[in-house]
Every structure is written in structure tokens, then in C-alpha cells.
């Protein structure tokens, strides 16, 4: 459908959200734990960025940091977040507040717990409109109905008086999307918006988000652990591991030509509908690291089949290598580099990698 | 002007003939009159004299059996009913005549100490009333001055039966009931036509403050003007206040452990004497912060015979060696365990647990193990009422009512007063004492009578049926500007004389 927009030589649109060298830490400054490290990405106007990674790799923390919603015990200890060129750290609490909802909006993972259980959905949706945008109750109500219609909730007017628990999971997720887009945000951040849903409903919701993004011209950051979801929705993909981005680039590039051993391993570890059914999976051995005790060097080295002595000592930088066109990887081995076609020792013996 | 009296306990219903505690009887004195009153206008030690009240005068027949009272004229009850002989007769009907419509079982039993002497009563004419006794009894006028023999309006008596009367007290006294807040507070208004002259204060308020500290604070802060019965701590706390004065009434009373003549050990007089020698009464006085004086014998200060008895009636002193010697003489094998009942609280018994501890310590020093059993006051009374069981060695108790009269010795020590008839619950019996008391009872020569009582008391002291302990000095705290409360030897106050500067 939008194959052209992400083609290699397309010029990327002007950036709305720029994150550079972001670090999120918990605990006292002496014994702090960095759950997000050196994370940088740029989302252009109308663009869709997918952030993928396993549980605990820091996806949500990154986005909470961007939105200024880290819990009291956490903090941004380094790096910068810019929204439309404006450094968010320079904003007053009040300015930041008014940026939320209008500049950036969030759709969170669990739709039941993301809606206030003791307020009707109408009240929740209309709240910022009435209290911050000075809309009349009537106008706000009309706008809510319009929004619910937009996300495909039948009988919207009648649903305004419902409490969240009276709606099914799919409907709640739609309500959440409606509330998120109610301020016409420039950036919509969706943190695992479909994990709790059935596949059929997931497909609908993803389509809905995609469609709204196009219609409203929003930029989208979608966080997920499901590679399939990203493949369908995102233009750009960032793969995170242990708090760091290990590979990023256009969706096509990442899926057709994954360069980081982790990205590759991830793709091979899951059964896929488009592959022979009997193919034996090649799981990634071991477990993701505990952020309190990060491994030395490259965080992935204990699980990497292509590990080299250097990997244990030195943390590689996220760099273009020779991939070009914004495709960045964080690997000192870079086994699939074009200039490095001779197989590295270990690939041949490991077997499963194609 | 208003005078507020602080009460250390909840205010009971105001039916004087049913009430036993001093809290209620104290208030009764403000509302009611008796036929004969105690003259509280003079301070100083000694039992107050008796004076005419509703009875202007009285005479005794030669056989000592018939008392004739000439009643005061022109007195009316607060409800307008005229006071006359018929009214007095109705009051006695309430206590004596089971056929009468006003007869009250409870009042009758409460007043038994008086009515047991009376064979019959009669209203001769409007101003003349006679009481015929079962046997000669010279102490009758003093008994009639007891607050519980207050004369109640016959109209009220007919109107309010049972408990109700206590909530509608109607008497001839200096004050009449204005408002009543159950248990907590009571307001009395002056009776303008009072026969002893209009009282000097308009209102009298009685307020129950059951916490002693709070009562003292109320006194400090001016909420209350009089604490009629103060504790040692209250006296200490309040004596520093410039506008308050402390008054010691030294009315007759005694506190003791009554011993069981039927129980092991205590049936032996030597053992009882040993106990009396073993206790350090100075410690007890110290415990009461000087508000109590040691009393090692049966005759309290303020009794009719106190002066006479001095030096004649033995007072035990602290002599543990002697106690040990006596115990050795009996040849008791230690440890000897004594089981004694004691109230755990109640007016007059606030320090009971502490007192028991002290005595325990003293007795332990001579090899006697005292095991006090603390009970609610009422529980204790109902336990001991039929007389001590054989496994109980005695109980801590006190005696205030009528302790000024020599007749109190008969009430406490005569064998005729053993349960169920009386309060000789320790089963004390001494024929000699009984004989002396019986003679004294009808003896009309005051000097002879007194001498007989002194003899009896001396015998009693020798027999030591009690472990004599102490006498409460009954201190009062009064605001300086409140006048007319004299240090007469009585727990009561003559409210008709109270005034405020």
C-alpha cells in the first residue's frame, strides 16, 4: 500500500520528535540502574516508527521518559528530547502538561486499567476538552460522539454513559484510541496497543491506528514485541535490547536484510506462517540480562552465537557501518556486512542461520 | 449566687430512705429535713450535737420505750403539702406497715437499722407523733438524725412509686429540685420560705466528676466550688492554690480488716493481736498523704466516747517483734496464708489495692502471707453479707454511718448483730461485751452509759476482732469565697447556711 513512501531513497519528512542519547535511571545516583541507555531516534511528520524488543528491554521507559511521565523514583539522567525542535527539558511543568494530549498522546497497553474505572467514558473523554480547551459541555459531547464514531464504536451517543468495565476489550481499546486522538496530537505513542487482544481484534485495531494516522497526519510510535505487528504498520523500526537500540532503519531493510545478530536470532526464534511448518526453530539461548547487572561489553554477547573476544570488552557504537541510508547497527562483528561477505567463524557451524 | 458541689461518684436517685452512699445522702440534706438534725454549725472535734429540726422537741417515757415528738408548725413541703404528724406517720408506714399503700420493700430493708427498734408509730394529733420501741434504746434520737430518715412529702410518696420517687424528691429542705440530669448533674433552687430562714444562695449545683484528677482540675478552673470528700492527691494538688482552702472534718469513721472468728488462725485472739502489731500504720498514713491517721483500736476520733476512751482502750502500735513472739507462742508453722476480700474501687476505697500491698508487705515480714482478693465493692458486700465462709479470713471495709454514736459498737460487735440480722459478719462473740452493750443501750445516765461503752470497747480492743487500720480525716476543699461550711465532724454539709462572698 505504501511501498513507495519507505523506499530507500525517499527523503525523510521533517522531524517532530527527536530523541538523542536518552538515558533513564533508577535508584540513587551512586548505585543507579540505567534501564534505558543512549537511545536515539527521530520520528518525522506522518511517519510510523516501530520499537521492538523483548520484555524489559526499556521500550516503555523510553516512551514514558519522552512524555515526562516517569515515576518519581526514575529520572532522565542524560540525553535530550525535542518536540518540534523544542527541548522538552526547558519547558515548565505547565507547558509540558499542555503539550501532552495535544502534542503527544499515549495509548497504553492494557485498556481496562488505562481507563478510570469510576468515571463514565464520556466524562473521561470530555474532561480535557471542557476543563482545558474551554469547550461547552454540549460541544464536548458532540466531539466525543464524533470521535467514537471515528474509531468505529456503534451507537456512540449511547455509549458515553457507560463505565469501562461494561465494554469489551476491543471496545475499550477503541475508546482509548479515541481519547488519545481527541487532541489531534502530532505524535501518537502506542505502547503495545494490542497485546491483550485477540488476533482478529488486533488486526482491526492496527488498521484503525494506521488509518487514523494517515487521515490525521500524525506521527506514530508503536511499541511492540511482535515483529509481525511492526512489519505491517511501521515505516521505520528500532530494535532494542537491554536498554539500547541495537539496530534501526527502514522496515524493509530491517526485515529483508537484518544485520544485527540479535535481530536475526529474533526472527529465527519464532514460527512464521510464511515458512515451512516443520522447520525446527532456532531459539536464542539464555535469558535477557538483568538491568541491575548488565554484562560487560555488548549486552547481547552472552547469548550471541557469533561472539568474538572483543564483544565481551567493548560496547560497540550504533553506527551505519556500510549499510547506508539510515540503517544503523550496534555490533562490532557485523557478520552480514556487505563488505564482509566471508562468513565469520561460527556461522557455518551454527547451522540454522540462512 | 450559685455554689457548685463536685461529686466524686455518679449521682444516685434521691430517695433518701433507699440510698445508702454518702454521695446521695449528702444531697438529700439539701432537699429534705429530718425530725432531729445534727448541728453542723460548729467546727472542732467531737461528735456534733443533735438539735431539733422538724421535731421541735421530744420526750421519752420513763420506761424508755415511748418517744413523743412535738412537730414544728407552719412547715410545708416543696409541693405545697402541709407538714404534720400524718405526714411523718406516712413516712414510717412506708418503712413499717406492709399493708400500707406506700410501703416500700427496699426502703424498709435499707432502714432496718432504725426500724428494728420500733414497735409502732402513731400520729396522736396534728403536731404530736409517737414512736413506741420494742426495748429501751437511748440512741434513738441520734439515729433519727441520720440523713436517710429524711421526711418525704406523703403526696409525692403516693404519686411516685418504686424507683420513680428518687427522680421526684420532694421534701421540706432549704432547696428544691430544679433540673435533674440523670447521674451527672443536679440543679437545686432555693426554697424561699424555708423554716430556718431563706438560704443565702439561689442555686446549688451538684456535678458528678468521676475522675479524681478531672475533679481537681474542675476545682482549679473554677467550675466547681466544693469538693466535699477529697483524696490525698487532690489535696496535694489543690493546697497550692491561693483561693482554695482545705478543711479537715475528722468525722468519726474507721477502716479495718474485719476478721473471721470461725476461720483457721484468725479464730485465735493471739493471732489477731499479732496481726495488729505487725502492721505499720505510719506507712498507711503516708500512703494517704497524711489524709488518714493511724487508728490501732476500735474507738475513732469524733465518737461520743473518744475522750473517755483515750488511754483506757488499747491502741495497737507497730511492733513486729511482738507480733513474731505472739505467732511463735501459738506455734504456727510458716507460711500462714490469709485470704482476705477487698474492694477494688469505690468511694473511700480508691487506694484499696495499694493498701493491700502495704499490709501484704508488713505481714510477710512476720511470716504471714496475705492474699487479698480484689472484688467490685458490691460483689464483695454480697459475698460477705451472709457472714464469712470458713475459708475467708476477713475483708477490708470501713464504717462511716453513725460512727459518731457509741451505739456503733453494738452494731459492729454485738453477737446479736451476726448475720443475717446485722453486720457482725466476722462472727465476733464475747458474752462480756454483749452484756455491757445491752446494759448501755437502755442506760439513760449519760456518764454511766459512756463508761459501759468504754468498757466494752476496751474488751473489743483486747480481743482484736478486727485488724484496726486507720481513720480517714475526710478533707474537704472549699473555695475561699464560699462561707458557712464548718469543719464539724460530719461528712455532711448544712447547705442552708452556705453563702458566697
Amino acid at each position, binding site marked *: 500500500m505504501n511501498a513507495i513512501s519507505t523506499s530507500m531513497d525517499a527523503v525523510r519528512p521533517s522531524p517532530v520528535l527527536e530523541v538523542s542519547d536518552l538515558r533513564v535511571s533508577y535508584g540513587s545516583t551512586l548505585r543507579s540502574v540505567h534501564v534505558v541507555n543512549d537511545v536515539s531516534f527521530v520520528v518525522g511528520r506522518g511517519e510510523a516508527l516501530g520499537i521492538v524488543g523483548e520484555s524489559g528491554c526499556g521500550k516503555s521507559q523510553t516512551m514514558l521518559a519522552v512524555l515526562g*511521565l516517569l515515576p518519581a523514583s526514575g529520572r532522565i539522567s542524560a540525553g535530550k528530547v525535542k518536540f518540534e525542535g523544542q527541548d522538552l527539558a526547558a519547558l515548565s511543568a505547565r507547558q509540558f502538561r499542555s503539550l501532552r494530549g495535544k502534542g503527544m498522546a499515549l495509548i497504553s497497553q492494557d485498556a481496562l486499567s488505562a481507563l478510570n474505572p469510576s*468515571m463514565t467514558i464520556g466524562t473521561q473523554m470530555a474532561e480535557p476538552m471542557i476543563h482545558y480547551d474551554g469547550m461547552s459541555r454540549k460541544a464536548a459531547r458532540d466531539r466525543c460522539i464524533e470521535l467514537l464514531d471515528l474509531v468505529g464504536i456503534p451507537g456512540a451517543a449511547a455509549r458515553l454513559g457507560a463505565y469501562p468495565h461494561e465494554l469489551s476489550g476491543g471496545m475499550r481499546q477503541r475508546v482509548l484510541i479515541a481519547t488519545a486522538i481527541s487532541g489531534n496530537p502530532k505524535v501518537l505513542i502506542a505502547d503495545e496497543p494490542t497485546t491483550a487482544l485477540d488476533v482478529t481484534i488486533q488486526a482491526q485495531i492496527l488498521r484503525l491506528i494506521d488509518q487514523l494516522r494517515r487521515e490525521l497526519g500524525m506521527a506514530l510510535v508503536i511499541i511492540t514485541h511482535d515483529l509481525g505487528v511492526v512489519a505491517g504498520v511501521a515505516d521505520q523500526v528500532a530494535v532494542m535490547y537491554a536498554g539500547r537500540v541495537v539496530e534501526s532503519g527502514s522496515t524493509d531493510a530491517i526485515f529483508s536484510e537484518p544485520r544485527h545478530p540479535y535481530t536475526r536470532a529474533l526472527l529465527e526464534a519464532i514460527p512464521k506462517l510464511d515458512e515451512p511448518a516443520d522447520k525446527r526453530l532456532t531459539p536464542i539461548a539464555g535469558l535477557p540480562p538483568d538491568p541491575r547487572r548488565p554484562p560487560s561489553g555488548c549486552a547481547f554477547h552472552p547469548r550471541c552465537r557469533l561472539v568474538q573476544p572483543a564483544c565481551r570488552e567493548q560496547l560497540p557504537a550504533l553506527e551505519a557501518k556500510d549499510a547506508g541510508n539510515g540503517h544503523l547497527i550496534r555490533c562490532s562483528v557485523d557478520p552480514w556486512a556487505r563488505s564482509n561477505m566471508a562468513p565469520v567463524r561460527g556461522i557455518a557451524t551454527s547451522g540454522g542461520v540462512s | 449566687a450559685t455554689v457548685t458541689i463536685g461529686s466524686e461518684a455518679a449521682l444516685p436517685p434521691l430517695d433518701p430512705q433507699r440510698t445508702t452512699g454518702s454521695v446521695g445522702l449528702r444531697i438529700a440534706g439539701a432537699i429534705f429535713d429530718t425530725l432531729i438534725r445534727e448541728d453542723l454549725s460548729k467546727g472542732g472535734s467531737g461528735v456534733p450535737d443533735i438539735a431539733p429540726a422538724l421535731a421541735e422537741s421530744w420526750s421519752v417515757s420513763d420506761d424508755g420505750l415511748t418517744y413523743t415528738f412535738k412537730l414544728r408548725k407552719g412547715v410545708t413541703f416543696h409541693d405545697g403539702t402541709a407538714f404534720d404528724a400524718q405526714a411523718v406517720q406516712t413516712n414510717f408506714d412506708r418503712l413499717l406497715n406492709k399493708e400500707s399503700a406506700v410501703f416500700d420493700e427496699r426502703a424498709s430493708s435499707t432502714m432496718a437499722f432504725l426500724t428494728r427498734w420500733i414497735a409502732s408509730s402513731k400520729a396522736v394529733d396534728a403536731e404530736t407523733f409517737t414512736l413506741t420501741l420494742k426495748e429501751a434504746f437511748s440512741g434513738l434520737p441520734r439515729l433519727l438524725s441520720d440523713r436517710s430518715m429524711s421526711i418525704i412529702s406523703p403526696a409525692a410518696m403516693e404519686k411516685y412509686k418504686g424507683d420513680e420517687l428518687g427522680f421526684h424528691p420532694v421534701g421540706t429542705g432549704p432547696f428544691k429540685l430544679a433540673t435533674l440530669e440523670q*447521674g451527672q448533674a443536679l440543679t437545686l433552687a432555693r426554697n424561699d420560705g424555708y423554716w430556718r430562714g431563706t438560704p443565702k444562695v439561689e442555686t446549688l449545683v451538684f456535678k458528678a466528676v468521676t475522675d479524681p484528677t478531672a475533679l481537681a482540675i474542675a476545682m482549679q478552673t473554677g467550675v466547681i466550688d466544693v469538693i466535699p470528700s477529697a483524696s490525698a492527691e487532690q489535696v496535694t494538688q489543690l493546697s497550692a492554690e491561693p483561693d482554695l482552702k482545705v478543711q479537715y472534718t475528722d468525722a468519726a469513721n474507721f477502716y479495718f480488716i474485719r476478721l473471721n472468728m470461725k476461720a483457721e488462725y484468725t479464730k485465735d485472739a493471739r493471732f489477731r493481736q499479732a496481726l495488729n502489731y505487725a502492721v505499720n500504720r505510719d506507712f498507711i498514713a503516708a500512703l494517704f498523704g497524711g489524709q488518714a491517721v493511724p487508728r490501732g483500736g476500735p474507738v475513732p476520733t469524733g465518737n461520743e466516747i473518744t475522750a473517755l476512751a483515750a488511754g483506757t482502750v488499747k491502741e495497737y502500735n507497730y511492733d513486729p517483734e511482738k507480733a513474731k513472739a505472739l505467732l511463735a507462742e501459738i506455734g504456727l508453722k510458716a507460711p500462714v496464708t490469709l485470704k482476705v476480700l477487698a474492694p477494688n474501687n469505690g468511694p473511700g476505697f480508691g487506694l484499696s489495692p495499694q493498701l493491700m500491698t502495704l499490709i501484704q508487705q508488713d505481714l510477710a515480714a512476720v511470716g504471714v502471707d496475705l492474699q487479698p482478693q480484689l472484688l467490685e465493692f458490691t460483689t464483695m458486700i454480697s459475698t460477705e453479707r451472709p457472714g464469712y465462709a470458713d475459708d475467708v479470713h476477713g475483708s477490708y471495709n470501713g464504717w462511716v454511718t453513725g460512727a459518731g454514736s457509741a451505739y456503733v459498737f453494738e452494731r459492729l460487735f454485738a453477737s446479736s448483730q451476726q448475720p443475717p440480722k446485722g453486720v457482725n459478719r466476722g462472727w465476733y462473740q464475747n458474752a462480756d461485751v454483749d452484756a455491757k452493750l445491752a446494759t448501755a443501750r437502755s442506760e439513760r445516765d449519760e456518764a454511766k452509759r459512756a463508761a459501759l461503752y468504754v468498757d466494752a470497747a476496751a474488751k473489743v480492743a483486747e480481743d482484736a476482732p478486727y485488724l484496726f487500720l486507720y481513720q480517714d480525716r475526710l478533707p474537704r476543699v472549699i473555695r475561699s469565697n464560699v462561707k458557712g461550711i464548718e469543719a464539724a465532724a460530719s461528712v455532711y454539709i448544712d447547705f442552708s447556711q452556705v453563702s458566697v462572698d
Partner: protein
Amino acid sequence: MLSFIARRALQTIPVIFGVTLATFLLSQIIPGDPTDILLGPGASEEARAQLRQALGLDRSALGQYLLYLQNLVHGDFGQSLTFSKPVSEVLASRMMNTALLAFAAIVLASVLGVAAGTFAALKPGSLRDRALTVVVLFLNSMPSFWLGLLLILAFGLQLRLLPVSGMTSGDGGFVNLLAHMLLPTLTLAAWSLAAIARMTRSSLLDVIGSDYVRTARSRGIGEWRIVFFHALPNAMPAVITVIGMQMGFLLSGAVMTETVFSWPGIGLAMYQAISTRDIPLIQGGILLLAVAFVLINFTIDILYAYFNPKIKLA
């Protein structure tokens, strides 16, 4: 909602029934002969026997219980021995005083407790949060009668600012009543205040950490609105439960407080009743307070349901 109320109301019936049985049994094990106290020491045996019969003391235990129930139904709680009045009258005249004290205390405890808890929860880990935690811990661990004595010591004895006993003094009046109420109310409220503050703090922290509060923030809702319109209403059910339980404790805590401050309520009457073995009054007082407790719980459950949309609709 109606059916919920009805169901809940039906549930209280067996409980109240059980409560009457329990109070009855309590009186059965209390030693002491009521005739002693009623008639005084000098009464005759036949008078005693008569009274026993009149009181139904000669019947079997079951017979006595049935008589007791029958009397209860007619509003007859028996005759108080110390007050020489029907127990119902004694309790009725004092119920308002206790209710007044308990009500003032629960209002004070709720308002201050919720305010303090909220104040602490807004900045968890801050100095004020810690200070408050310590205060709450102290209030939570202090015997109320001791606190009462300390207050008497401070305000009555040292500062001589406030009256320390009874309900009124002098001519009374509202201000006078308030002055008398202050210390007992504070004493009675202290423990509940601590419990309410604790619960408010912890459930508010729970709610503030919840997903929907974060979502509300992500939509640009201000802190003030978050706390008062999003967090507090959702923290309320837990707080209300605690407040409800506290009401029951306040009624019983009144025994200690009323004793210390000579407050003429049911608690003081019960204390006096206990020291004089006034069985009917003890029985009546316990029954009344227990039933009040049951009814309060009933009300709280309804309130709880009201705040919880999931039950409201059921």
C-alpha cells in the same frame, strides 16, 4: 442496587439475632446476684424469691432467653440496677451524647486523616511524608486513654485552657459544649485518624501509580484534577471501608474516652455498670453498640457499593 441493599439487609438479620444470643449468654456467665443489688443487703428471702420470679430468673435458660427476646421486641431492656431506671431510658438519654462524640470524632478523623494521607501521598518519600508517617505510627500505637491523660495534663493542668470533664459547665451553650468536646473528640479520633491517614496514603499511592492515572496525565490533565477527580474517588472505597470499621471502634473506644473524660455517654454508663454488676445495663449497652455497629457496617457497604460502579449496576 436495590436488590443489593435488600440482600445485604437480609444478611444482617441473622447477625443481629446472633448478637442477642451472645449478649444473653454473656449475662448468663456474669456472676453476682441481681437481687442483692436491687434489694440491698437487708432484704428478706421471700422478697428475693418474689423478685427472682418477677425478673424471670427462675426459668430455664431457654425460657429466660425467650423472655429476653420478647422483652426486647417490646423495647424492654430490663431495669438498670444502678440507675434505678429502665435500661432503655438510661441508654436513650446517653445515646445522643455518645453519638455526638463518636460523630464528631469520625468527622475529625476522616477529614484530617484523608487530608493528611493525601498530603503525604502527593510527595512520597519527602520529609513531610516521613514526618507524617512517624506521627501516624505514634497515634497508632498509643493507648487512647493515655493520650487522653496527656491531653488533660497539657490542656487542663498546665495550660488550663480547656475543660477536661463532662459535657457542659456553668450555663452551657454551644461554645461551652464545643470546648468540652474538644479533648475527648481528639482522644477518640486519634487512632482512627492514624488508620484513615495510612489507608488514604497507601490506596492513593496505589491509584496514583495506576495505569489510568498515567493515561490521564498523558492527556494533559493537571495534577490538581488528577488528585481530586481521578485518584481520590478511586481511593475512596478502601478509605470508606476503613472509616466504617473505625465507626465501630469509636463506639467501643468511647468506653475508655468517656471514662477518662467523664463524658456522660453509654461508655461511661457501661463502665459504671461493670463496676456495680448492673447486668441488664451491661447487656443493653453491649447489645445497643453491637447493633449500631452492624447497622453502620450495613450503611458502609451500601456507600461502598455506591462508589463502586461495578456493584452499583448489579
